[in-house]
């Protein structure tokens, strides 16, 4: 079925962006967009008794990058254990591709599996500018989902120089050029200045006023510079911040200081769970989720994604190379570190979160506390930081934990309680997410936070990305196997069967900037880069950049 028109009939619609909370109505589609109505005789999908939502939007994943590919290469045993034969598509379309799964699936399998869960838009959250070409090549092999990425700038040598010089205009123009030159969608900061410190053989920067060489270059200065740059450029998504001091006991101090430093500015904090740890008298980890979420609840300019930890295999993969260094030292697992010239770093350590491990249980609880204490689901969106906290394939199980207190309490009884004493979750949180709230944290919220006006809702003019679920008392099963998934008006999944696998679109920006900056950037390239300035921008990209403003 490749009809340019489609009517999804009689479903119970959850479209929170348009105030629709469980009303029965038709959803009409024409030429890949939602329309008010379609003529009589249009092909239909029967959704009576079913739940209809916009397609899922993953605001923070690692799926298409040079770093991901280093991770894939490191994990042949995972791929061998999870073979993925080519799905049997409709006979009138090009056949699908085989692949392998695990925590870092091959590209085609990644696209199919995301679509199979009803996710139709995904962002790779960490791409080193110099490797942007690689990301575009991988996205070309990642079907169905619309994809974009965030470009790493928080440890970039040229950017740091502008911070040192206090030249915020030039920093902003450079950031704008970088986004356009790499085909990115947003600015990412990972451990501001800390990766540069690690590469220079210094101690990681764990507090926001620690100097990086010059006293003028601190995490605070980097964060402020790039946050303001993103907002002055009116980027649809604000700066996407991975705070300093990830994973450390007591890192809530760093997180709170960061949030206070940027208070009142539009900012997105990512995988917040990894940044909400207190420290007990013995120096061990405790949950500090309540303190952080209080701040998030009260500052309406802030959005976050949770970075929930799910029990099972994971691959920690991050530009935060000093954090990965500590993890390999403590876990003894195999370890990849790649220093990326003039820009950033990359660390990879395979990992497993275990119910019986006290630290895993604490991380699991901290994530849930953030979800359950959140007062505004529009600003606290769902992620596992795939594959860091667990695979995106665990989203249905996570949704079940949010919607079903019984399932949550049963799990709570099984996990190691050692670090959970006195935590809010252990004391009992009765909240259960509603379907409308799930629609917010998995679709409407991330789309709004990303500034994607055509995504995450079912209003007239929206992209016709629609997921239809069969109601099921087993919430995890319900969200794992949608009845239908429609992407851009095309029926791609029906009852667990992939039917079509069209190419997704590239979501990218090309912000304006004062071109005077380029003379200086060229000098920087000529002096220190190993790639010619003329060869740096990625040209001939698919799909026009989205409009800003």
């Amino acid at each position: 079925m490749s009809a340019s028109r489609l009517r999804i009939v009689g479903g119970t619609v959850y479209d929170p962006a348009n105030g629709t909370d469980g009303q029965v109505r038709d959803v009409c589609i024409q030429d890949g967009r939602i329309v008010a109505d379609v003529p009589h005789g249009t092909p239909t999908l029967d959704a009576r008794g079913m739940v209809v939502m916009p397609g899922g939007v993953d605001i923070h994943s690692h799926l298409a990058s040079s770093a991901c590919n280093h991770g894939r290469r490191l994990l042949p045993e995972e791929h061998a254990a999870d073979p993925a034969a080519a799905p049997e598509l409709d006979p009138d379309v090009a056949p699908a591709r085989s692949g392998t799964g695990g925590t870092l699936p091959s590209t085609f399998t990644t696209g199919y599996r995301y679509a199979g869960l009803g996710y139709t838009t995904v962002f790779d959250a960490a791409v080193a500018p110099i490797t942007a070409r690689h990301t575009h090549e991988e996205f070309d092999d990642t079907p169905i989902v619309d994809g974009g990425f965030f470009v790493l700038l928080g440890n970039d040598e040229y950017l740091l120089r502008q911070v040192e010089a206090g030249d915020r205009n030039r920093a902003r123009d450079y950031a704008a050029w970088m986004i356009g030159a790499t085909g990115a969608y947003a600015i990412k900061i990972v451990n501001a200045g800390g990766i540069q410190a690690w590469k220079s053989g210094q101690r990681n920067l764990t507090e926001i006023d620690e100097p990086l060489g010059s006293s003028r270059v601190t995490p605070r200065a980097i964060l402020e510079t790039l946050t303001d740059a993103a907002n002055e450029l009116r980027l649809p998504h604000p700066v996407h911040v991975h705070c300093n001091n990830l994973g450390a006991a007591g890192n809530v101090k760093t997180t709170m200081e960061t949030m206070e430093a940027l208070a009142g500015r539009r900012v997105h904090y990512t995988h917040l769970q990894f940044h909400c740890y207190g420290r007990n008298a013995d120096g061990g980890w405790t949950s500090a989720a309540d303190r952080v979420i209080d701040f998030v609840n009260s500052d309406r300019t802030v959005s976050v994604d949770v970075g929930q930890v799910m029990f099972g295999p994971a691959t920690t993969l991050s530009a935060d190379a000093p954090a990965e260094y500590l993890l390999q030292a403590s876990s003894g697992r195999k370890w990849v570190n790649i220093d990326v010239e003039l820009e950033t770093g990359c660390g990879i350590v395979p990992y497993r979160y275990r119910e019986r491990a006290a630290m895993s249980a604490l991380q699991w609880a901290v994530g849930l506390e953030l979800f359950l204490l959140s007062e505004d689901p529009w600003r606290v969106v769902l992620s596992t930081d795939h594959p860091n906290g667990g695979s995106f394939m665990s989203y249905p199980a996570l949704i079940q934990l949010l919607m079903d207190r019984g399932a949550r309490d049963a799990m709570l009884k099984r996990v190691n309680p050692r670090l959970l004493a006195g935590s809010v979750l252990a004391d009992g949180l009765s909240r259960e997410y509603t379907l409308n709230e799930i629609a917010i944290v998995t679709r409407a919220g991330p789309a709004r936070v990303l500034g994607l006006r055509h995504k995450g809702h079912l209003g007239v003019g929206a992209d016709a990305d629609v997921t239809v679920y069969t109601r099921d008392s087993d919430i995890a099963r319900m969200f794992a196997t949608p009845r239908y998934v429609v992407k851009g008006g095309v029926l791609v999944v029906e009852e667990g069967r992939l039917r079509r696998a069209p190419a997704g679109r590239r979501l990218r920006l090309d912000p304006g900037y004062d071109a005077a900056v380029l003379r200086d950037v060229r000098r920087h390239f000529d002096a220190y880069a190993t790639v010619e300035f003329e060869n740096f921008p990625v040209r001939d990209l698919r799909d026009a950049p989205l409009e800003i403003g």
Partner: protein
Amino acid sequence: MTEAARVAHVTCLGCGCACDDIVLTVRDGRIVDAERACPLGVAWFGDGRVPGAVQVDGRQAESRVALDAAAELLRGARGRLFVFLGDDLTCAAQRAALGIADRLGAVADGVVSETAADGILAAQRRGRAGATLGEVRNRADLVLYWAVDPDARYPRYRERYAGHPSALHLHHHARTVISVSVGADAGPPAADLHFELRPEREIAVLAELRARLLGRTLGDAAGWGAELTRLAERITRARYVAIVADGESASEERSSDRTEALIALAQALNGPARAALSTLRGGGNRSGAEAVMTWQTGFPFAVDFSRGYPRYQPEVRGAALFERRPFAAVLVAGAPASLPQAMRPAFDGVPTVVVGPRASEAPFPSRVAIDTGVAGIHDAGVALRMDDVPLPLRAAVSGPPSAAGVLERLAALLAGGAR
């Protein structure tokens, strides 16, 4: 004679350095000069002229006819199929070729399995501590050449990545160069310190060196005690150590253990100081082939699609693939010249399709041969440098149809055949 055109910022795939500062002068469709190119680069570009033949059973044919014949041959073959992924292709062409292998349930492999597999396997066991080449250039205050002199096979490595005067983080720290020779594998003659090792001592010395740097000792310096102390002491003083080794070393008996020991050494040096292992890789887009295989299948080489999904068969790779039982048909995607010598006899009598640069000049009989452009000379696209940095390839000279285009058409024909 027409006016010469200059094409600047051209990426050279003569070796894995992938220097992207080459200026080509093109006159009458020929490359007459390759400014800044080393001898390997000059040889890589040549005069830019390649044949543009399309042949079926040795006779000139229409490309449509040839593609149909190729599709029919591959589809109709009864038994195992083999797809060779060449290195003189863009990533786009490699992606298409691997798609064909997937479609056909073939075994897919490429040049890396003959030359670099041991290093890749070692890194799959241990991980690695690496860096892109610009980090070596801007940070390494100690460059340790382990059993390799880059000048021979990677001529501009030192100039571009390890000898540059304007290094961002080396203001007050001169760069020290240490040359370690292991038997016949000599380090560079121009170095601040020289060490020589007998091959049978190499692994023991690397293990002891690592132990010393971790503050321990295995007590086995293999009779190299004073030298080892001197080397360890110098390494300890460095802030950022770049260990440079050949990822495609000719001395096969040692390379696996050597690579693993060097990875372990580089990893151990991180913590108090920083270190990266810079692995030298050969020419063409071989890092691209490895990367494309990895992102499409999860495995970097030696992939068997015969069960309908990718299976990793690193123990049966390269020439060993042909020892078990013959293939029913072979697709060579890339220049036939890039086929490892050891594989060639196995092609005798096997129906073969060749799609790639100079396909029509294959040193073995082929049923279908379709000449294409060369990546980075006639075909625009992307290739990966030896450190996996992706670089743009320019179409500097017009030539036969692009390999990506031909392979995509072949893939579409094979996909159509499913219906």
